[in-house]
């Protein structure tokens, strides 16, 4: 299999980076998990540490001030980040992922120059504003529109469930533009959050991932200049959304594997300490069977994510593989977390145990950046399309 070896970060350095991150997560973040969950907030100190570490820009090119990890390295990093509260990763997830990638992949040099270094350092938080009521799984149906003005654009519409909207400095906002042929096409704009006409709603009360905030974002005749249009010319938005989301799926799959590993470790620790009668519960074969199934899920998921990342990187599969990995890993972690709760018995339903939180937190992974149904549609339709094309 051809593999790209020209990562900006050498394999040797990456081993140390991963090791450093592991120590940071275990030494600093895991001890704060309860606090993050109870206060529904990432402590400011932790945000500063994450910035200093380079976590807001690990996926952004070194040329633009980031760390420049390649896709396989990003997947490995995601697995490690998945070992703790997903809210932690969410804090810088949009900068590296869906939002940052739009500017890096599709922005003009001037736009990259203006924003990427600040995004990579965490000085600027970027949010990805695509979803609307009635336009989640079907992003082509968005109703937010951008109308050409003399010196730029006027954007109006309603977005919902936008991650990091309350702390965002810029929105990567998707809106429809009527082109010269009279067709409505999805375009994407960089909109500073303080621009008049923008209101961010109160943050949503979510099932899980306390500490990660989403909110509605209203655009009411928000005026931006011509330089706000990503790529500088029309015809880019829809592709930017789909490309950015596809790559993001590898990260989501990696996070799922990390959470599954954590559940397995928590379950194993519990099963070898908690007793019923004279036996630790891990002595019971039905409990061992659950541990075994968890291990199989983790191992298969890890192999799948890294394989998808390699194929994405060498260009052999940028479409189906990420969906396969996201579908399998996010469903897998749902089952693994469910077994984790089961292994813990009543304790698994009590907030003091991490599995209780993880059970709720991972539910989101099957919904955003494409629901499981949408992943199946992508995989299935591409398979058929490829076969038909072969004739």
């Amino acid at each position, binding site marked *: 299999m051809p593999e790209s070896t020209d990562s900006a970060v050498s394999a040797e350095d990456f081993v140390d980076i991963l090791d450093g991150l592991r120590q940071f997560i275990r030494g600093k973040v895991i001890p704060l998990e309860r606090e993050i969950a109870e206060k529904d907030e990432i402590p400011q100190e932790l945000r500063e540490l994450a910035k200093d570490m380079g*976590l807001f820009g690990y996926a952004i090119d070194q040329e633009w001030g980031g760390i420049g990890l390649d896709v396989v390295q990003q997947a490995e990093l995601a697995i490690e980040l998945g070992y703790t509260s997903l809210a932690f990763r969410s804090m810088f997830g949009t900068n590296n992922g869906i939002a940052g990638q739009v500017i890096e992949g599709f922005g003009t040099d001037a736009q990259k120059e203006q924003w990427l270094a600040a995004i990579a350092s965490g000085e600027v938080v970027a949010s990805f504003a695509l979803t609307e009521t009635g336009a989640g799984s079907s992003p082509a149906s968005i109703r937010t529109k951008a109308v050409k003005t003399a010196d730029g654009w006027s954007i109006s519409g309603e977005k919902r469930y936008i991650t990091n909207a309350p702390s965002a400095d810029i929105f990567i906002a998707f809106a429809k533009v009527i082109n010269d042929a009279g067709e409505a096409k999805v375009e994407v704009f960089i909109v500073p959050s303080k621009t008049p006409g923008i209101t961010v709603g109160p943050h949503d009360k979510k099932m899980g991932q306390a500490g990660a905030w989403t909110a509605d974002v209203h655009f009411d005749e928000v005026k931006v200049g011509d330089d706000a249009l990503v790529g500088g010319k029309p015809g880019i938005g829809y592709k930017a959304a789909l490309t950015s989301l596809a790559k993001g799926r590898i990260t989501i799959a990696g996070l799922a594997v990390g959470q599954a590993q954590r559940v397995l470790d928590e379950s194993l620790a519990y099963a070898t300490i908690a007793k019923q009668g004279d036996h630790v519960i891990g002595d019971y074969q039905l409990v061992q069977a659950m541990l075994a199934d968890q291990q199989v899920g983790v191992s298969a998921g890890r192999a799948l994510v890294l394989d998808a990342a390699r194929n994405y990187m060498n260009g052999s599969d940028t479409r189906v593989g990420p969906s396969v990995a996201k579908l399998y890993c996010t469903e897998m972690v749902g089952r693994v977390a469910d077994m984790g709760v089961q292994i813990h018995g009543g304790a698994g339903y009590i907030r003091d145990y991490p599995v209780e939180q993880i059970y709720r937190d991972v539910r989101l992974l099957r919904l955003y950046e494409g629901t499981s149904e949408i992943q199946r549609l992508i995989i299935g339709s591409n398979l058929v399309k490829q076969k038909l094309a072969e004739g």
Partner: protein
Amino acid sequence: MKIVVLVKEAPDTYGERTLSLETGLADREASDRVLDEIVERALEYAIAYAEKNEGTEVVALSMATDAATASVRKALAMGADRAVLVTDEALAGADVSLTAEVLAAALTHIGFDLVVGGDQSTDGAGGVIPAALAELLDIPQMTKLASIELTDTTVSGTRATDRVTTHLRADLPAIISVTERFAEARFPNFKGIMSAKKKPFEVLTLADLAGGSDNGAGTTIDVLSAPRAIMTEISAKPARAAGVKVVDDGDAGTLLAEFLKKNQLV
């Protein structure tokens, strides 16, 4: 300003730590080897100072086997400018006085305004290296400090003990040792990790140090005479005896208080 931080690898205190009963040396295979935590605090001080004071050079100095390379490199990842590792087979099992002589020679070789060490390591727990270095190099020592203030020509600091706080000041060059009152070390960031391998990392043997340089006290290092402290016997710690159980027949409070008093725990 040139600050040399004495860095030392130690078994991770979070893990199991064992001594080999054959050699009396720490069993390196038995536990993860990391930079000793107190050393990290010393480094943190030096690096934070360097960040605020342009023209400061921070050098990490260690005497260890080359297996310690990764740990010493962590000092570079945290932000030290360069590292010096003295490593030589003849130094296996070196005692405190030999270690001090070697470090003194290395410090003379490097040159310094301030030497910073931890007050004592978590493994050897000798706590005398800074004092021994002060003697060999004929420089002032200020040990077990809780805080310090550094100017171009002097270092001042406080030493807090149970009953008194002592304020100290010395002219540079000097050597100090820090306690856990110093700030916890930073985690090396990704950029630091990537730049660490590009920073100068000098590896010296005893021959390098003996050639031309001395131990600061005017004599060359005499490896043949070392080590001077010889371990004669080593045995495993006896298993812990069962504790005292206080059964409450209404007088448990009194019994507990008596126990604490008797064992001088209050």
